[in-house]
């Protein structure tokens, strides 16, 4: 008889990484303040892991824990994504007041530099993105504080 537990786990692993990958980018780009979604992601992740402990079978327990741990990682990725926007590694959303402030301060770009095909040689990226980096992120945080 076929054992379907692995198939479920594979689907959940793949889909939770995919949803996290796309979801974090969207959520960070559309949240004026990233703290509320981070708290929601963390609480949901912890809740799912607690449920995993009491689930009636291994499949449901594994699925809950995989999604739960992925959501907790996504909470951390929200901060990392904000850092990417400030480095010009992810596009800023001018309609988001937080991103609009980054753009006004010259700390971000609206172009998605990843939206291209590999060409096999190094690519010159826009000066705004190249000139920034982690120090610029820290400078902005200091200005904000």
């Amino acid at each position, binding site marked *: *008889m*076929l*054992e*379907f*537990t*692995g*198939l*479920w*786990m*594979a*689907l*959940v*692993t*793949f889909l939770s*990484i*995919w949803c996290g*990958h*796309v979801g974090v980018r969207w959520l960070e780009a559309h949240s004026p303040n990233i703290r509320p979604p981070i708290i929601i992601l963390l609480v949901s992740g912890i809740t799912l*892991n607690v449920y*995993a*402990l*009491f*689930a009636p079978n*291994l*499949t*449901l*327990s*594994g*699925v*809950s*824990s*995989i999604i*739960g*741990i*992925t959501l907790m*990682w996504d909470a951390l990725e929200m901060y990392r994504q904000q850092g990417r926007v400030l480095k010009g*590694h992810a596009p800023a959303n001018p309609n988001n007041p937080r991103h609009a402030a980054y753009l006004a301060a010259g700390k971000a770009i609206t172009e998605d*530099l*990843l939206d*291209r*095909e*590999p*060409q*096999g*040689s*190094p*690519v010159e*990226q826009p000066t705004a993105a*190249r000139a920034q980096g982690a120090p610029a992120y820290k400078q902005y945080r200091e200005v904000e504080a």
Partner: protein
Amino acid sequence: MMWEGIALGLFSFGIIGFGFFWVIRMEYHLGYLWWPYPMTLGILLVVLSLFTGNAGWSALLGITGGSFIWGATELKEQAVRAELGWFKFNPNPKPNPPGLRWIKKIKAPHL
């Protein structure tokens, strides 16, 4: 209490972390055109998980397979990241994957 489920969650966390490692290394040394190979490996692991006869082993193989399939879709974007200078770019010529002619006919997946 079902600690095995939490163990599977932690295992998936670890295997995704390993995914970061191998995607970067594979793109650096071989190039993104090798993407069908980790994808095939992932699919084979998932198929194998159906025949283990044990839920635990099946789950571990399934998680590993799912992660390899995802990693295969990340190789192209990793190649772009390296070209942009966000990761170390390998200036040396990369080996062609077996079946390059067919691989080039399919657009490398990217999600």
